[in-house]
């Protein structure tokens, strides 16, 4: 994925604590750390609350994204 802060590209699976944090045995840190600048991003696959909130803020049928006109 691309870090939204510094634009550095990295593999998110290496940088979440799921496998690493011993305290994260249950579900893991729900954040991903950019290895370049330390910026933390939410890993929505591990944070139910964040996923729910994102859905509330951007419903799937959101007209904000313009449909293409062929």
């Amino acid at each position: 994925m691309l870090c939204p802060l510094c634009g550095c590209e990295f593999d998110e699976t290496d940088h979440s604590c799921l496998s690493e944090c011993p305290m994260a045995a249950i579900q893991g840190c729900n954040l991903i750390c950019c290895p370049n600048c330390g910026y933390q991003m939410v890993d929505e696959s591990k944070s139910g609350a964040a996923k729910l909130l994102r859905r509330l803020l951007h419903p799937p049928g959101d007209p904000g994204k313009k449909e293409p006109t062929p």
Partner: protein
Amino acid sequence: MTRFPIIPSLEGDVHVILVGNPNVGKSALFGALTGRYVEISNFPGTTVELSTGHTDGMPLVDTPGIQSLHARSDDERVTRDILLERGGSLVLQVADARNLRRSLLLTMQLAELDRPLLLDVNMVDEARERGIQVDVVHLEQLLGAQVVPTVAVTGEGIETLRSRFQTARPVRHRVRYDAAIEEAVARLAPLLEGRDGDERAIALMILAGDAELAARCGGAHRAEIEALVARTAERYPRPLHFVLTGQRLRAVDELVAAVVRHPETRQAHAGETLGRLALHPVWGVAVLIAVLALFYLFVGRLGAGVCVNWMEKVFFGRGVNPLATWLAGFIPVPLVRDLLVGEYGLITMALTYGIAIVLPIVLTFFIAFGLLEDSGYLPRLAVMMDRPFKALGLNGKAVLPMVLGLGCDTMATMTTRILETRKDRLMVTLLLALGVPCSAQLGVIMGMTAYLPPAAIVVWGAVVTGVMFAVGWAASRVIPGERSDFILELPPIRRPQLVNIVIKTVARLEWYLKEVLPLFALGTLLLFVLDRTGALHLLERWAAPLVEGGLGLPRATTASFIVGFLRRDYGAAGLFALARAGALSVPQVLVSLVVITLFVPCVANVLVIAREHGTKVAFWVVGFVFPFAFAVGVLLHFGLLVFGVHF
């Protein structure tokens, strides 16, 4: 020439290969160029679908969208293979006019293939709508290759694009990497077998970690190539593909600055000035102090003051606790009742501390920290910190884990892997364990400073940083390490987005509730058992010479230090509660805060140290840090007494 899997429908000499980032309009352009006759097939051995067709009698293939040629997904591998296979072909890159930075990053990689390249800047209609202007003529001059603006969905620019197929030439503008990388490329390229002209690109892909390519093109030299890659990688703190991307981005940013006009250039300008100020040796310190002061007002005054007051007095004081006590009255077994609502009760202590005291503080802290993070300030703080660290003789790379430590110490301890020598790694691990709190803990510790006058806060800050430096200095004498330069790609200063901050704050709170609260409950349970068995009383008596005599603290703080072994923020919360109850004077708050700040962050951190460096090291770190924290506290206590400081 080394052959790659071929697609039957692609036979023929010259091809047009359509390449681009995801969602830039490749398929739309493909449609506009080919008309109706499209063939869809699977790339051999994968599920990746490819559309092929013809334009002006030339075969045209649409590749999957990719971020870079660094092949990690099937999509990226397929695109890489097609590009390497179709040696004589024309590369038609579709770029997104709305986000040229991302597109040009790929252009810089494609340029290394040394093939004729045509850059299609697509979606100019949407870019125009947003006020983004791309100076195509200037970009053409800078790149030394042809650039055509298009709107694939309306057909605008398509004819011009078609007319350039015959005259396309390789991009002249190339990224110059640093000396170590260029040297590695120069050595690697001659080892590759059967390539014609794209050795540089392949060498760079192999350096970026493409082992598959190394195996395929390395032939007899494979072992030599692998050794060369490993040797080059050792020179950088981060994996090579970050280093390469970073250096490419620098080249791209120069291009973007020259050819893209954004509507918000003025804002970007203000951000730039702020970014420079934050790095200035003198002004940078002023910015840091201003940031800390704002933090203090928000977290200390609002979070730890107003919000905690309300939660404790109204929500818990009049709501939860009386209700729980009343309900507990129905429980016939006194032991169970005390376990819930007694002095060390799960509700009266764990929940009250966790929800009434720590939650409002970490909430305000998470918001403030998120704002700071999204503004791009933290990497600049790392660069600022690099200077004093260098003066210590500490490896500049050490700064990175320290900044990451602000997010999560456990995470940071793992990133110490990037440091070269075992000694460097141990030193940073020690400093992390000693002083750098993770964000939730930093919040609680900052919240406690609300009980201190400004002068005492300065003393606290000075003692903690002084101790860190002293330990760092002493450790660097014991451990000689060579100095290496630390270059961090700095992101621009920008305005944080509200939605982002809200979502991140929610995710962090969720983590806090799920992972920290259970540990608080465990700590309370421990105290409850100690209390019941009389062990707590005994411990308090044993610890009295240290806690009362040495630190000058009331006996009741012993319990806070005990749970502080589990997580230092829980210990801080206990001290916080005592301070609120008026049981601690200003010097006592100061001394106890210094001690708890220097504690090992949490049990998790110790476990990670044990796993990364072995049980013996973990044992040593713990064995050093706790006595050391108390020793500093004792010195501070007597220092305050001797100099008669009252605040």
